[in-house]
């Protein structure tokens, strides 16, 4: 079957020229065909094929190039080329031999494959290193198409022999080929550990690799370094040996070699026991990483992501280099954000002043996103370094003075976190914050300020007035603001019961009657019921919604819950879980490290062949986790700000105690919920239990409430985890609420 070239148009002209009797005309025509490869010129296949037999190397290469691109479309005709391929693989010119082998490997045509094995066999033993290295890579491609051919022909054994080749380039390419085969083979479901296709690095291979490492090209070095990263050292002596041999790679100009070397060192440093060597390695690691930062922004970003990861494991690497990370105003946003993150990580008492003056500078920049992140960074610094908290607060006050809306709002949000970390320390600035009440239009900022007012209600003379503003506009506010207002008013009532009966009554009324969020309504009901047990308050409240008087202790529960001292917060030292971190460090200098997610979560293969077919089954899952991974990456910054609830230290100075609630508020999620700071959508679960249309009998009711809370806290502890800080809650934290919540329920039942 032959395809007729079109009679008219350019293709026709090309076809005529390709069949010209003049050599130069034919060659020129081939060049034109190549130039129009962006459009379809597959119709010229037979005409081009005729020009394959030639002494002119350039022409031969162009024809081969064409064949590689159009072999798929003309599988029947490709067979015509086989003779020339086989002949060329025996050509006296090594370039032609290599070209023939390379092209045959790339064509991916069944018919060609069968003729490939013999020439390949020869070329693997070729005297010319260029031919040998080309042949080595060809074996990997053959394995991709027909693994059994590779195994039957003994190509694998030959590759293993070639690791000891005298030419380092051949060694590097052989390692690359064996690694490719290893990856392809290990993705098969039914692979036995003794499969010949696997490429375990033995100590004899190690020796050969270390020798070739210093001789070959940068790309070869990367391949070898990646293989070294897989090696499992026998003892500490061997780990030391590897580290010492790899360290000189830090001086390579190519950044990918440097990063691959850093990875190998990080992996094998675990096995090193000599403290002085570890110190030395860590010290040598800093300069090349810093040098990467003088590269173009895209390289900088990759470097920064990796540095961020390395710092989590070894915060000492760049402890004196913070200034390198100072942002320029024309840095791209993604670079700036990463730099900010690293700067906060490197912050310490000795450099915090420089950091703060930088952050203050950034807060006056044009880019709103960046300004907000800088202000957040100020808050993180305050929480990280106790000694600098006051200076941070002053910077924030300066920023609030600018009266730029988004600056003020972000500063208020950050201030709330500082109040949480250092309770009762900076009350003096509350008036300044309240003075900006009118400026706030973002829910988060409003909610933060309301939280502060509620928390310090007893110290703010006009707290009821201020909260009154929000109560007036209650139904127009967003739900987080409503929730926060509700809690703050209840706090106010508990602290100043005499002057705030009116306001608490108003808000409970509005929240239970006019609010369309079940979440807000439920919280209002809970508060109401607990409040109505108080003799004083009950008088007022009973008139609206009569509930039987409950024990005095119920009021104490409310006080304990609402006014509970929250566990101190701190910024997570790491943003990824320790176990994940270990795994990621193995992935330094990889896509995984850039996304701070382990390889399996997102790596897929864009290739055709056995692997992708095999992956078909688990692909949807893959895809889901990839998206999730990337979302998390996007939320990476946010994750930083999700302040860690540290559950370990015992809470002291609790206003009043009930064993049950104590247990409850010990679990972060529960404390979070009860204090009303949670914006977790899973709070809605309360509604399942706690939203009876008509008031139920008291005892059953409060059972419901606490049943609801118990379930909810169990759920929401999982929920906060998924919000983007999986590391923050280690499994050991997540489990206790489930068991302990049984207790409060029992206790309460006992009470009634």
């Amino acid at each position, binding site marked *: 079957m032959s395809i007729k070239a079109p009679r008219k148009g350019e293709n026709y002209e090309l076809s005529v020229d390709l069949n010209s009797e003049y050599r130069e005309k034919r060659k020129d025509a081939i060049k034109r065909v190549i130039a129009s490869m962006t459009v379809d010129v597959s119709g010229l296949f037979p005409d081009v094929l005729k020009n394959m037999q030639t002494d*002119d190397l*350039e022409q031969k290469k162009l024809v081969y190039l064409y064949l590689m691109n159009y072999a798929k479309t003309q599988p029947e005709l490709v067979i015509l080329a086989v003779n020339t391929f086989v002949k060329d693989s025996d050509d006296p010119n090594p370039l032609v031999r290599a070209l023939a082998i390379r092209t045959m490997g790339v064509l991916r045509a069944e018919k060609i494959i069968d003729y490939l094995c013999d020439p390949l066999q020869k070329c693997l033993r070729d005297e010319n290193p*260029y031919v040998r290295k080309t042949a080595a890579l060809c074996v990997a491609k053959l394995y991709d198409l027909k693994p059994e051919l590779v195994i039957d022909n003994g190509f694998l054994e030959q590759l293993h022999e070639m690791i000891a080749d005298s030419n380092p380039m051949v060694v590097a390419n052989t390692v690359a080929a064996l690694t490719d085969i290893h990856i392809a083979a290990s993705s098969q479901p039914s692979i036995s550990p003794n499969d010949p296709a696997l490429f375990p690095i033995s100590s004899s291979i190690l020796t050969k690799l270390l020798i070739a490492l210093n001789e070959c090209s*940068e790309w070869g070095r990367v391949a070898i370094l990646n293989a070294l990263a897989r090696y499992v050292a026998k003892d500490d002596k061997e780990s030391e040996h590897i580290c010492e041999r790899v360290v000189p790679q830090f001086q390579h100009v190519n950044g990918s070699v440097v990063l691959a070397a850093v990875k190998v060192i990080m992996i094998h440093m675990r096995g090193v026991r000599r403290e002085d060597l570890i110190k030395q390695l860590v010290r040598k690691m800093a300069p090349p990483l810093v040098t990467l930062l003088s590269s173009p922004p895209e390289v900088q970003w990759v470097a920064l992501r990796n540095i961020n990861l390395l710092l989590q494991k070894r915060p000492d690497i760049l402890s004196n280099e913070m200034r390198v990370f100072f942002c320029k105003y024309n840095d*791209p946003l993604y670079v700036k954000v990463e730099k900010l993150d690293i700067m906060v990580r490197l912050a310490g008492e000795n450099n915090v002043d420089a950091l703060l003056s930088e952050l203050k500078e950034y807060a006056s920049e044009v880019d709103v996103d960046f300004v907000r992140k800088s202000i957040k960074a100020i808050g993180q610094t305050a929480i990280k370094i106790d000694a600098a908290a006051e200076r941070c607060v002053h910077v924030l006050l300066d920023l609030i003075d600018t009266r730029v809306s988004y600056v003020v709002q972000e500063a208020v949000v950050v201030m709330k976190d500082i109040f949480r970390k250092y309770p009762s320390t900076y009350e003096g600035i509350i008036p300044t914050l309240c003075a900006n009440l009118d400026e706030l239009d973002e829910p988060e900022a409003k909610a933060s300020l309301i939280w502060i007012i509620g928390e310090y209600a007893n110290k703010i003379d006009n707290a009821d007035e201020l909260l009154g503003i929000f109560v007036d506009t209650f139904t127009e506010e967003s739900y987080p603001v409503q929730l926060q207002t509700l809690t703050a008013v209840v706090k106010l009532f508990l602290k100043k019961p005499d002057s705030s009966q009116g306001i608490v009554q108003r808000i409970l009324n509005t929240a239970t009657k006019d609010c369309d969020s079940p979440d807000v309504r439920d919280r209002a009901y809970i508060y109401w019921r607990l409040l109505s047990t108080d003799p004083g308050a009950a008088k007022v409240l009973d008139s609206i919604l009569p509930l039987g008087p409950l024990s005095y202790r119920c009021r104490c529960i409310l006080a304990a819950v609402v006014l509970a001292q929250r566990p101190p917060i701190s910024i997570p030292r790491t943003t990824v879980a320790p176990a994940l971190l270990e795994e990621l460090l193995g992935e330094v*200098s*990889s896509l995984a490290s850039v996304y701070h997610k382990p390889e399996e979560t997102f790596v897929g293969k864009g290739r055709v062949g056995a692997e992708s077919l095999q992956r078909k089954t688990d692909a949807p899952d893959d895809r889901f986790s990839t998206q999730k991974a990337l979302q998390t990456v996007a939320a990476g910054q946010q994750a930083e700000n999700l302040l860690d609830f540290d559950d370990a230290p015992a809470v002291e100075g609790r206003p009043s105690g009930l064993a049950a609630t104590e247990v409850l508020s010990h679990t972060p999620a529960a404390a979070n919920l009860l204090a009303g700071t949670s914006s977790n959508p899973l709070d809605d679960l309360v509604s399942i239990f706690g939203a009876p249309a008509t008031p139920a009998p008291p005892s059953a009711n409060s059972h419901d409430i606490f049943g609801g809370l118990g379930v909810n806290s169990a759920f929401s502890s999982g929920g906060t985890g998924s919000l983007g800080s999986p590391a923050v809650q280690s499994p050991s934290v997540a489990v206790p609420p489930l068991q302990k919540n049984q207790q409060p329920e029992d206790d309460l039942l006992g009470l009634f």
Partner: protein
Amino acid sequence: MALDGIIILDHYGRPIIQSGFRSSTTAYSILHIDAVNNALQKAERSADVDSVIYVPPLNTANGSSACCHVEVGDLRFLCPVSGDVDPLLAFAFLQTFIDILREYLGTVSAATLRDNFDIVYQLFEETLDSGGHPLTTYSNALRDIVIPPSLLNKLLSVTGTNFNSTINSGFGAGAAVGPFSSPLPWRKTGVRYNNNEIYFDIIEQLKAIVNKNGTVVSSHVHGKIEANAKLSGTPDCSLNFTNPQVLDDCALHPCVRLHRWNRDKMLSFVPPDGRFTLMDYTFSSNPLPSPSPTQQSLTSVMSSRSNLTIPFIIKAIVELEDSGGSFDVTLTSRYSTHALENIVADIHLGPGAGGIRCNVSRGSGGGGFINAGGSRNLDTSGASSGASWSFDAQRTVLRWEIPIVSPSSSWSLHGSFSTGTRAPRPSHAIRVRFDISSHTYSALKVGQLKVTNAKENYKPYKGVRGRSSGEVEWRW
């Protein structure tokens, strides 16, 4: 390792040329082109697009992948990667490939690419294996297998002589051995020149941030030594410096013998033929102290590093009003011997800025005229006007350009801008870029360069030049 290929897009995001993508589906490259174009469209500033874009798979049969991309002039180079690859590998490879293209085509543009499709396709084939492994990227080796387009080649093909194919198929004159048989992968054998010469350019770039009080917040000098070797045979060079202690964080070309450098601070190497970067370094005015530095000494190193003098002073007075502002910026050279050249100062005026009125003038200060030597000639052209300003309304950047600032002279720019109804929010920083010829910040001096050659005896011409540039962010 799997770099799946290279795609080159033109200014409008349309593909000009791409490598084979033979081990992936046909839709694969289109998917990546679309992903990049979409991301670019969404972003306000194209520079703010993440440099590694996640590309979801088209259907469940294919896994996901990522796309690394770089902008070069009007073009955008894409490198799709699948599997767990170091994105830095992709970027390093892209950079190398772009350098190779420059060497082959002179300038890299849509037009030159279109004129040389056959060359570019060949380069794709030779530099990147279809399995995703970078192959030959040493230009010395590449030139053996892909003939650069040259006037000679064009002439020959016009006259119909098939000369060049005999060169490359028979490795004709002198080079009896085949390609890649050279014991040094970076240098080809049988190189011959009538005039043997080797040149070194010491190029340093200063990057600094200065705060509004005029104190240097951070400053770094990155230097590199670029060499151009035109030496016959297999020459062995050794280069030493009179003050190697100024060099820090050195990254060396693979041809340099590491142990000699680590032992004697001597660069001993057999150079590639032609241009190459011999080493990269950071200038530290104070060499790192003993192996176990105390906290104190480290901080002192840090401060000394930032103590480098910025070659000029800027005084900026900016007054902001409700709907605009006025500025008065004065730039004074601090150098008494070297002129600053090609000064470009960018002021980002923030959203809504327009209605610029500006006046540039040469300040009264400075004695440029009286200064000796070449600066006098320079002044006559610069004094009259020379300096100019322009405004990029889209990016709202006011650019002030001064061709030459002679030693100790001062220049000023004053004017006003309006922002319509909005309050002005300019960046509180002026970015200044400049060049200084025949000058290095580190004052690195080459002590001695020896070229030895076992077979042939020649005395090459040797030359060393210094050149500096800088990028300073001056806050106000």
